[in-house]
């Protein structure tokens, strides 16, 4: 008889556990069915609070890194000086040819009545944190909805394209870098216009995929955005080809390793392109 209340309590516990598990399964099903992730207001507030703390903590870190980099720079300054002199001479030649191209470009733009690319609306941001899942190349920047930043906006840094916005809260956003395992960008090889898709390899490099065997790709070729993905404007620098291989015999495409032009590891400041589509003047 005394065991009856105990049995009842055990029964209630079992029902509670089963109910909890069913609820969990329900939540997971709902989460799996929802394709676009909705950020709740409470989540947004919490993310903003975390962003402020991350922003505060990232300052001493970047200073420490500056000191370290200054020391390293000092060590390599002689070698660098010689290399830079050689590069300067080469760049002067290039600048002359670019000036020609710029003048030609202006003429063509006037003809087409398209606004100059300097009309792109941009916002400068600082990198304040990274994702805690190490296999995701995602960083947090200190601009958000308040600054007019939205999902899928391209993000640039010194050198070239860095990635795109994937999530925003009021004051902070997450940027998926082009080296992320899930990153896919429409790309072309500048020299011969060969099209492909630039995929992140998850570490510090990228792979230019879906380029047919037989197309001439050389190490050092420049890879730029094709603009066909509808997210990135055409012509942004992605990187340079560092490895070309035929792949397996069964493969239809070549293996092309690309080194990103953007300095993924050293980036502290980035530029978010808020609007990049050329506006055509109405007649």
């Amino acid at each position, binding site marked *: 008889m005394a065991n009856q209340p105990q049995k009842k309590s055990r029964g209630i516990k079992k029902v509670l556990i089963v109910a909890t598990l069913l609820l969990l399964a329900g939540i*997971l099903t709902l989460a799996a069915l929802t394709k676009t992730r909705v950020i709740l207001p409470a989540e947004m507030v919490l993310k903003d609070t*975390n962003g402020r703390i991350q922003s505060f903590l990232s300052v001493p*870190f970047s200073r420490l890194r500056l000191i370290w980099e200054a020391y390293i720079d000092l060590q390599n300054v002689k070698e660098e000086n010689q290399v830079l002199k050689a590069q300067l001479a080469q760049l002067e030649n290039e600048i002359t040819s670019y000036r020609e191209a710029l003048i030609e470009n202006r003429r063509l733009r006037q003809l087409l009545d398209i606004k100059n690319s300097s009309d792109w609306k941009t916002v400068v941001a600082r990198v304040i944190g990274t*994702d805690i899942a190490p296999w995701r190349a995602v960083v947090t920047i200190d601009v958000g909805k308040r600054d007019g930043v939205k999902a899928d906006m391209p993000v640039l840094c010194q050198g070239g394209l860095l990635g795109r916005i994937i999530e925003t809260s009021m004051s902070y956003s997450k940027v998926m870098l082009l080296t992320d*395992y899930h990153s896919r960008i429409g790309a072309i090889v500048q020299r011969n216009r060969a099209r492909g898709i630039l995929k992140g390899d998850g570490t510090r490099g990228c792979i230019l995929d879906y380029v047919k065997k037989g197309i001439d790709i050389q190490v050092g070729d420049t890879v730029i955005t094709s603009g066909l993905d509808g997210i990135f404007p055409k012509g942004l620098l992605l990187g340079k080809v560092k490895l070309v291989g035929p792949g397996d015999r069964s493969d239809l495409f070549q293996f092309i390793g690309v080194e990103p032009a953007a300095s993924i590891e050293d980036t502290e400041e980035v530029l978010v392109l808020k609007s990049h589509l050329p506006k055509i003047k109405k007649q």
Partner: protein
Amino acid sequence: MKTIFVFLFLSYVSLLFESTWCIFCNLYFLHIDPLPALICWLSLKEDFWPGTLAVTICGLMACLFSCLKFFLFPLAYLIGFFTVYFIRVNMLELSKLQAYLITGFISIEILVVQLAGSGSPELLWPWGLIQAVINFVIAPVVFWACNRCLALLSDMVARFRHEKGN
């Protein structure tokens, strides 16, 4: 209650550390992650329901620092908590070394859930397993830090009560 406070405090600190100070010091897919060891430590100390609640809160906190699918962190951490709790309650009294080993095992489980849930299960070999070994290696440090924090907190509470009594 003190155990949960120490667990949540150290979880938040380690999440902040991982997301800010480790920005560019990840080695490929590896990093220093004290969370599996923290979960193991809590599982060996706390009761079922308060522990479940604390681990869920910790998982939800982790969601804020990541772009992985919502509920993936709480799910992975809860499975880890339940596993260690079940072993503790039904099977054996764990020695220190066994507790550290269990940290390595639940690290694999956590990574299986997270990698599969985020669409990258192929990274489990070898990265996930190397990460589990790293988590096993850092487990003694995390356990020591947790025990030290708990002792400090208990001391502070006892002193406060003593002063209040006087």
